[in-house]
């Protein structure tokens, strides 16, 4: 699975958690989940679970602390897949 495929897969996951006034087109790799996309922190917990299911990986607490932007999420996913 190349990086672009992973990115698209992640966008699909994020899509459902976006508030009504934020569209998926506004999501870029630099988007900050809470500050820019207005996703609440409780839902970030659910995004992590969806990511685990979609990529068959497990995120640790320290991974979650580092997860602030879409790019952070992609880096964590890439690293986890590489180390599988």
């Amino acid at each position: 699975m190349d990086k672009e495929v992973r990115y698209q897969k992640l966008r699909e996951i994020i899509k459902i958690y976006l508030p009504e006034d934020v569209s998926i087109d506004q999501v870029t790799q630099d988007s900050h989940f809470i500050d820019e996309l207005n996703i609440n922190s409780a839902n970030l917990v659910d995004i992590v679970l969806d990511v685990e299911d979609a990529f068959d990986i497990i995120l640790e607490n320290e991974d979650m602390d580092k997860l602030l932007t879409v790019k952070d999420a992609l880096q964590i996913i890439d690293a986890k897949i590489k180390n599988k």
Partner: protein
Amino acid sequence: MGRRVVITGLGVCAPNGVGLHNFTKALQTGVSGVRFQPQLETLKFGCQIAAEPLVKDNLRSHYFTPLQLRGLNASGIVYGVIAGVDAWQDAGLEFASKETPDWDSGILFGTGILGIDKLRESIHLVDDKQVRRLGSTTVLQTMASGISAYLGGILGCGNQVTTNSSACTTGTEGVLMAYERIASGKAERILTGSCSDSGPYVWGGFDAMRILPRNYNQDPTKASRPMSATAAGFVPGSGAGALVLESLESAKARNAPVYAEVLGGAVNSGGQRGEGSMTAPNSEAVQRCIRQAVANAGIKNIAIDSINGHLTATAKDPLEIENWSKALELQGEDFPYVNSFKGLVGHCLAASGSIECVGTVLQLKKGQVFGNVNCEDIHPQILNYVAASKIPQQTIPHAPKIIAKASFGFGDVNACVIFKDCND
């Protein structure tokens, strides 16, 4: 004497009809919501029938966002939100704007146990050492006040938002609590109601108590037999009912059509003393509750021309009728028309009071007393107090002016509310 309180909106998610229109028709024509439940057969229940609302997936997506629907596994919340949102819209009210809550509107929506399927899911995850996999909505779906919290967010209510719980009295008690808050001037509008989850984990305990009918698994629509000599126990049910109570001033100010007035009522408990216990009613308390309700409503006994009973289809039905008769000092042909909707919707437990209050108010609106079913063979002890002509076997065109509605629950708790027609 406080302010006058009226009902301006109704909503319902009942086993025999989802939505006001379907429910009204079902009560008028005697459509049953009791069905065989293959899951209960698989699980080796004695009673393998139940009454649960049939909610289609596309209906869910009308009331919930795709995000809310993800992992939603609390049927009571689904029923409660459908009934609650319907009642709000039926009253001609809108959702509060995105920025500011409606400070004058509150929610008082009860339940018995909420989100039991979600709870089961969570227990399995926790026991498997997977607590981190619970997700963010486990708490919201399993806290008792989850239903008022979901509705509060959808409607944007800024007055009191809370949940009451008093077993099978819950819904009727909620109407009275909402009435009192509005009468005392603390709110203009309250969405009140109650909901109850479906499924074996709610109904199992009752099956274990051997108070559900076991001989009707092949004939579900005949199983729920309130007031019948062959009543064999209550049929477990689920669903939700909702009513918008509003100050008369507020209703008038916005020209809202009025279904009925809430004249008053009473709640009490038998204290599990005398003949009362955790599961059996203390008759003295029941009679006091009815008498206090009548006094609180400021009417004469004789003014009550219809009763919607608790009447669950157990051996206690004759005692309930005796209590009504003694409390109101009315019998035979003088006894008001009496009916029970449980013949069609089963016993919806925490949701029973609100679903039945909705049905009771619909009788005022339609100028009818909806028919009983499955009591062709009226219990002989009941006939000692009530003339058979006062127990209609089908819907009759009698337009009631004042209806008394009562609900009783485990814990020896009672509630009785008096509704008055507003067609004049």
